[in-house]
């Protein structure tokens, strides 16, 4: 009699273990189906740098004297930002996923801020998601007009005559290289990349960029510089993998 009881208890214990394990596996599988969880689970990083070879032309000096309010903000010379290179590394290059993504990515609630300060745009190049708020701020005591000559998106041109004025806009189409200018200060220029996803970055002063959190897979990554054009390459990442890639532009 005792061995049958023992066997039953054993079976119950095993059943319990099996049940718990199943639940855990089921839970894990269920969890794996949610994208965010997959990202955390994925933990991919695509990073690298963008460099430039050849003779980069010296940038033009900006005529800040055109407006006393601008000249006051800059005791030293300010250079144009159309090609910013130092030590062979390119700044202000937009790096982004061009192909390979599936699913939709809702725009974050946090806005991207573009600031007009010292009669320059900060940042000079930025990425933003479709539907994400763009907050345009005038931090100068002079008139700036934010003139957006978008192509696929709707153009707009709004004056901000008073310091501290804020205007909010959104883009509803993906578009690469949306130009912003100020008519009062003709040297002011900014470019935006509007994407339907959050996987983009802009290179810093050392040419470095990093795109985190892509799901495992194969992607086309493109780098775009406003004067030197675009270059792309295919990258495959597995969960938790960090991939180093680099781009090199030839100065014309």
């Amino acid at each position, binding site marked *: 009699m005792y061995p049958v009881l023992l066997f039953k208890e054993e079976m119950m214990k095993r059943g319990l273990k099996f049940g718990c394990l199943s639940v855990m596996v089921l839970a894990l599988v269920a969890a794996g189906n949610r994208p965010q969880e997959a990202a955390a689970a994925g933990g991919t990083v695509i990073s690298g740098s963008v460099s430039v070879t050849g003779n980069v032309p010296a940038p033009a000096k900006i005529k800040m004297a055109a407006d006393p309010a601008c000249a006051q903000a800059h005791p030293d010379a300010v250079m144009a930002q159309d090609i910013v290179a130092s030590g062979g590394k390119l700044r202000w290059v937009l790096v982004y996923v061009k192909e390979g993504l599936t699913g939709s990515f809702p725009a974050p609630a946090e806005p991207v801020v573009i600031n007009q300060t010292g009669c320059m745009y900060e940042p000079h190049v930025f990425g933003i998601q479709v539907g994400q708020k763009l907050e345009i701020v005038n931090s100068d005591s002079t*008139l700036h007009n934010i*003139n957006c*000559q978008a192509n696929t998106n709707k153009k707009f*041109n*709004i*004056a901000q*005559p*008073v310091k501290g*004025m804020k*205007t909010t806009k959104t883009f509803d189409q993906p578009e690469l290289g949306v*130009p912003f*200018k100020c*008519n009062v200060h003709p040297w002011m220029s900014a470019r935006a990349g509007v994407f339907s996803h959050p996987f983009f970055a802009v290179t810093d002063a050392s040419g470095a960029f990093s795109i985190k959190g892509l799901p495992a897979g194969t992607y086309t990554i493109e780098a775009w510089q406003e004067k030197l054009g675009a270059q792309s390459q295919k990258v495959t990442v597995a969960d938790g993998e960090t991939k180093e890639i680099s781009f090199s532009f030839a100065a014309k």
Partner: protein
Amino acid sequence: MSKIFSTDHKVIGIQFLITSLLFMVFGGGLAMLVRWQLGWPGHALPFMERIAPSGMPGGVMLPEYYNMLFTMHGSVMIFFGIIPLLSGAFGNYLIPLKVGAPDMAFPRLNALSYWMFPPAAAIVLSGFFLEGGAAAAGWTAYPPLSGLKETMGIGQTMWTAGILVLGFSNIFGAVNYITTIINHRAPGMTFHRLPISIWALFTTAVLTLLATPVLASALILLLLDRTIGTSFFLPAGLIVDGTTLAHAGGQVLLWQHLFWFYSHPAVYIMILPAMGFVSDILPTFSRKPIFGYHAIAYSAVAIGAVGFLVWAHHMFQAGMNPMLGTSFMIATMVVAVPTGVKIFSWLGTLWRGSIRLKTPMLHALGFISMFLIGGLTGIFLASTPVDMYMHDTYFVVGHLHYVLFGGSLFGAFAGITFWYPKMFGRMLNDRLGKVHFWLTFVLFNAVMFPMFVLGLGGMPRRIYDYTQYAGLVHFTGLNRMMSLAAFTLMTSQFLFAFNFFWSMFRGKKAGDNPWEATTLEWTVPSPPPHGNFAGPVTVHCGPYEYSVPGAKRDWTMQTEKSQGKAH
């Protein structure tokens, strides 16, 4: 239904009257917003955020909205205010009555002319509700700014189309006025027995008929440039926001020539009727014939004729051959002569009169006083070198407001207060009328006279924030005072509006001839019945037979034989 679409010239005249007065209130409101920005540049006006969220975010006016405001202020006041008021309302109401006709020559065309007016205004004003807002290139709409989709949005297209519709309304009205005056005068009403107001309205109608089609052509060409890619006013090589546009072959100055060819006669369209009213009112309230009837009558014709030869004085600095500056300066100086003749003739009418200072007379005297300033300041602008400094400054803004408000609007008030009893069968309250006159007179000068000072100081017009110029910052206090005066001026118009509507129901009943005047409209009941005159009318004397020696009373109706000079 037939009442609303009435073909009776009196109903149509009152329709024009009420509609244009309403638009003038709206135009005045726009001016208040302009004055707010000029008095307190960049300050927030909180309640405006709800009314104009994109134009005044947080209640702070944007420059593009300021440009819309003065554009629409000018356009509304000129096209939907003064022209329909002086020509549409008074032309319609007075002409058949004063020439002795039962109605206009073409009553249905007349009704059409009115019913094109509100839709035209609606089209122009629709811009406020469309993407990019209303037209913002000034009432003068110079291309390329006004002619490119890239620089002005759909509101500018609507402005162009709406003014075009209004132009046709004006032309139809002019056809009626000219035909009626020539063909439908009562027996005995020779041209030299016509009241001066009819001479004025006749000249105005001829100007309208000849000049408006030129504006229409210009507007059509502008519309085509804006919509289907023609280049009438757009030269090659335009670069807007970094893009070279495909237009080629157009002439920028062509618009200015076509526009001003209409718009200079247009200013005479806006002043001649007012001068005509004053010429009727002065004899009535001086109990004296007009001094120099022929001179005043023919000076109106002369102003109209010479007025066609001066248009390019608006373009002295526009890039024309300077010899055109010379020729147009000569013509402009010439037109000052018949204008001066009128002023002196009015003085001659007052001299040795027996002056009754009722409200219509106060407005008529105010007209003379203010139009004098407007006319004299025009002489500065006529001198091409002085114009080189004054052009596009506040000196011009002061000049134009003295002739259009000081002149046309006081003339309109004179006409309204004078003919109100005939129109509505009741008297306006005279004391309230006088208070309104004095407030308007004083406050108007407080707002407008400093503009000459601003202009001499080099303050350009159409400037959202003059404090950006170090040399103009010291005008802040003056601008602020002008704005406060403007707000008070606008508010005091409420007295006129109240008087207007209250008296319609509670005013003292007016008889046929409450002012003891002589012309034909005062021989019939107030208001006159349909068909105006009970029986056939015969005219026996001139329009201003007052104080005829030996006569029973100090006025002789035109239907009576005068014992004095019969004309």
